[in-house]
């Protein structure tokens, strides 16, 4: 009887995961295999893929050719990695105090504050990034405002050259991904029993010690989750750098996009995609090994 029931449970479980499984196989696993196959192919003069097995694309990515070593693509890869690290670090620094503030706000205000954090996401991503041009360009809001203010006290103002630039890309990335860090950090900060703060104070910890010994470790799971939600998309996004970086700021995402659309070399683009995926995976695995996914930090 019991075995039959368990059997039935197992079958029901299979039924429940089937739609997701089909979706994942059809739209993730198979395309991924196709990308891997393509990455070992060659481009014919018409921009079609010749399916063979060659490491040519990967060798080209590494910058090795008959003419010698050219670090062009390696620089793009390391630049993307650096930007993803910078974005993640700054998003944590900016988002943490806000998440903490929201988590400690009175219950009634909390939902309103969370709502306000999400409001920007209602506007299209591309439009919001375009809006930054209006703020950052030479004749933009920031330069005009500064010029006017300094003009009032009689100081000559040379407008800052902020757009397009790598700094503008970083600002755009931070702006775009901040909510994805705040929300998981808020969730884990909100779960901390306020009695723990009192216990720490009672045991002689001042505000700073309490933060580093109690608050920070207990909110680590949210930070880990937020990091994964921010780091991975930043590595692959090409719209922000496309809009705010001009033609000179090229990230892996842009490289891949251009191989498929402008250069019509899907084989090389596929190789770059695989390298991007491997790099992201490597960093994520290293990070998860080091900090965990947070499960051993929170008591069940």
């Amino acid at each position: 009887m019991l075995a039959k029931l368990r059997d039935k449970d197992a079958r029901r479980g299979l039924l429940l995961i089937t739609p997701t499984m089909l979706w994942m196989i059809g739209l993730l696993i198979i395309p991924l295999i196709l990308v891997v196959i393509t990455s070992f192919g060659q481009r014919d003069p018409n921009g079609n893929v010749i399916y063979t097995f060659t490491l040519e694309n990967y060798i080209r990515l590494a910058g090795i050719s008959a003419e010698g070593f050219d670090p062009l693509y390696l620089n793009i890869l390391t630049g993307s990695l650096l930007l993803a690290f910078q974005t993640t670090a700054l998003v944590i620094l900016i988002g943490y105090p806000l998440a903490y503030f929201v988590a400690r706000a009175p219950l009634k205000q909390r939902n309103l504050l969370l709502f306000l954090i999400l409001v920007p996401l209602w506007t299209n991503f591309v439009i919001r990034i375009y809006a930054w041009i209006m703020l950052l360009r030479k004749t933009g809001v920031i330069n005009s405002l500064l010029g006017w203010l300094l003009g009032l006290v009689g100081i000559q103002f040379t407008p800052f050259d902020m757009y397009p630039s790598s700094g503008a890309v970083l600002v755009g990335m931070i702006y775009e991904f901040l909510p994805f860090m705040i929300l998981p950090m808020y969730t884990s900060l909100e779960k901390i029993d306020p009695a723990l703060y009192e216990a720490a104070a009672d045991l002689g910890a001042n505000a700073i010690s309490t933060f580093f010994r109690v608050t920070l470790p207990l909110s680590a799971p949210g930070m880990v989750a937020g990091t994964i939600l921010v780091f991975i998309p930043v590595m692959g996004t090409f719209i922000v750098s496309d809009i705010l970086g001009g033609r000179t700021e090229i990230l892996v995402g842009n490289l891949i996009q251009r191989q498929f659309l402008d250069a019509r070399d899907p084989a090389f683009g596929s190789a770059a995609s695989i390298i991007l995926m491997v790099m992201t995976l490597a960093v994520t695995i290293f990070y998860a090994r080091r900090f965990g996914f947070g499960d051993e930090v929170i008591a069940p």
Partner: protein
Amino acid sequence: MPEFAVELRNVSKRFPGPSGEIVTAVNNVNMQIKDGEFFSMLGPSGCGKTTSLRMIAGFELPTDGDVLIHGKPMGQTPPYQRPVNTVFQNYALFPHMTIGQNVAFGLEMKGVPKSEIATRVTEVLAMVRLPNFEKRRTRQMSGGQQQRVALARALVNRPEVLLLDEPLGALDQKLRKEMQLELKTLQREVGITFVFVTHDQEEALTMSDRIAVMSGGVALQIGTANEIYERPNCKFVADFIGEMSFLEGKVTSQNGAVVTVDLEGGLTVQATTDDKLTNGQAVSVAVRPEKMHLKDISLPADANRFIGHVENVVYIGTDTHYAVKLKGGQKLRVREQNDHPGSQPLAQQGDEVTVRFAASAARALTE
């Protein structure tokens, strides 16, 4: 060293309430807790006992008055600079630390050398009967064990005063009784002043040297368990602690400590009081069920004797409880011990009985 470990001087605490009104949680409380004493604050929820404790710990600051610890006014001193430690209601153990790290936390904050911390943690865990538990995680422990860890984490700092906020509330009945005795023994061993908050009168009576009974933000009576039980100073304390029957009436005369009170239905009762009462004043005469008798035992001539009818008889083994309705409509609960082999109830439902009690067993209380 000053005589008092903790002193509350005219302490009040007012909060803004949910709809903007001012809530007085603690109203002009004065308390003197002696050094080395096991002191309890007892009262129903919302009586101000927890707020008082939190003001000693420093989690709340008094709106008026001051808290003194060993004679030092605490003023605005933050919790982490006060020589007290707290055992929290739900233990508040750090879930990301081992038991050893939890217990060591306070010592680390004080900058005690590492080697000394290790010894003291081992010692205190042995004291709360959790030897070699350093490496365990809090989630691997039962409620009773977590309770001991919380105790160890506070005691390891050798505080001048240990504050306990309903620490046994989450434990089951049997474990509770065990922990009550253990706490009391532990307190004698370490000799630290314990301030214990509870709503459980039995717990307070069992463990405390002295008890403050609180209600509505006021400390109504402070005294030993015996004083509070035998000589309650107001109707609330009389009613809250143990079982009590009340007879409402008006004072007709007072002769020293003895007052005569007229009840409805032409009955007169002799009672004692600590106060100076005026004739015609409304009082409640409080009598404990076990101090009243249906048996014809020898009592002084001026003892109270009332005729009434038994409304209900409840046999509970050690005792039998009788609900008796007097001529004037007043109801009394009488408890007789079944102290003879083969004891039978003294009366059945509907029987006419005489309820007897000495004037000294009855206390006339104003509100």
